[in-house]
């Protein structure tokens, strides 16, 4: 059965997994993220397509992340991401800095089964200088034209939140096609959804246009308001008051622990 409990659905995310997650606008599985922290997941190689906000910061603060690969982590208008900033300065995580289209390109390379994808830009940047795994070749179709090649990123698991899924595991993602890239690139994909849709999403051509086929999906778990306190586009806005509270509490280690206690661990009883 593809529809599972949240905890069962998350079993595929093992310690040390390469876990790929989307940007805030695409639908972040925050309820699942809290469940992972409660379970004590560790040593994640977190890939955020192409940026992250609260999700990365919370996982880092909880000690769940060994390596982070993304283009930026912040709390947007609420300022820097406190756990991320502290971890980088303390050297407790390995940071693989990228630029947005490089993360897209590397995941699209995995999606297409090609070993690498070229990308313009990057030449002369320290992003490139700090990435020995990125190669520069002379464009075979040009002359003295250096171009960067990015190796494919193949996540073990992709995890995200979407408006709805059906019993076949088809997931309606609408315009959030980053979620399709993630699912195609990853070995396994776990999705939380606001609600279950009666019938088959692929039967209606209008809904099908925004549907990620169940073929790619390992498990779906029901998680109403599962992106909270982050927004779910076209469904609910961010809970900015809560995010401001997080920004304030996470500024100190003690405050972060209290946040975990109040907003992550307390849910264990729920």
């Amino acid at each position, binding site marked *: 059965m593809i529809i599972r409990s949240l905890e069962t659905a998350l079993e595929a995310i093992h310690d040390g997994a390469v876990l790929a997650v989307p940007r805030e606008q695409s639908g972040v599985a925050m309820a699942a993220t809290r469940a992972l922290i409660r379970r004590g997941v560790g040593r994640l190689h977190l890939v955020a397509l*192409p940026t992250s906000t609260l999700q990365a910061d919370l996982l880092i603060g909880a000690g769940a992340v060994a390596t982070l690969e993304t283009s930026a982590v912040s709390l947007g208008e609420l300022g820097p991401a406190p756990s991320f900033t502290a971890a980088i300065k303390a050297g407790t995580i390995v940071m693989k800095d990228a630029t947005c289209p490089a993360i897209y390109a590397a995941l699209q390379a995995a999606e297409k089964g090609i070993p690498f994808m070229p990308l313009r830009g990057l030449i002369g940047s320290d992003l490139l200088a700090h990435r020995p795994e990125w190669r520069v070749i002379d464009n075979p179709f040009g002359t003295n034209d250096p171009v960067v090649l990015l190796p494919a990123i193949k996540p073990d698991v992709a995890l995200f939140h979407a408006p709805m899924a059906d019993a076949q595991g088809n997931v309606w993602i609408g315009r959030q096609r980053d979620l399709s890239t993630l699912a195609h690139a990853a070995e396994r994909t776990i999705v939380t959804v606001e609600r279950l849709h009666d019938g088959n999403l692929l039967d209606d051509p209008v809904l099908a246009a925004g549907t990620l086929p169940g073929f790619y999906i390992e498990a779906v778990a029901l998680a109403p308001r599962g992106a909270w306190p982050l927004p779910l586009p076209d469904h609910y806005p961010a809970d900015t008051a809560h995010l401001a509270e997080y920004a304030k509490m996470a500024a100190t280690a003690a405050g972060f622990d209290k946040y975990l206690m109040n907003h992550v661990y307390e849910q264990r009883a729920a």
Partner: protein
Amino acid sequence: MSGPFRDEELLAAHVADLIGDVRHVAVGNASPIPATAALLARARGKGRPYVSLLGSRRHTFFTDGGVELFDCAGQGRIDVFFLSGGQIDGEANINLVSIGDHDKPTARFPGSFGSGYLYYVVPKVILFRTEHSRRTLVPKVDFISAPGASDPNVYRTGGPICLITNRCLFDFDRASRRFRLASLHPGHSLDEVIEHTGFDFDQPDAVPITKAPDAATLRLLREVVAPEVAEVYPQFAAHVFGFTRAA
């Protein structure tokens, strides 16, 4: 700054002028003044340019995921973009990553976002850093998220055209790889700019004053643009325009 307008209004109005008559302006993360400027340009242009505002549901036409912004730029279909930097140096290199040793930094910024690509391929990149100080405008950045200029053989269809701060506007000359002071904002002086700028820059014999926004512009900003900005930057819109969205 003097005048019956706020700094942010002066800057947004001036950036709207810099945008000029183009087809498509894109605005990335954490850019409230550029967003305001782009929406002002569109309000003036009666629907032209297209404005793609990251995080907006109203001002975006993208339906192919986050990659569409970058693909669009690669197609040559983005005319203007905005970048900032924790540090910006005199060659227009920008640093969005960290201060100090990269492996043991003393300060960490969010990260490079799309700069490592868009800085190369968008024809008009407007650099934006309201805090004009020797902390932000440095002789040499500690980390190059994206370089201001490239060797002639490097594929580069775009780059910086200017840098706008809370004190002045610099133009960037790609050939000499140097900034040139273009105008001082009302109430600011050349000496002050020199004092607070960490890099050398060229200057004209007489430095003009940045043109203040006229009444029509201010009205557009406050009545038409403010509510649109509030969609993505509610705190900014409340602070600058006193605009609060209905719950």
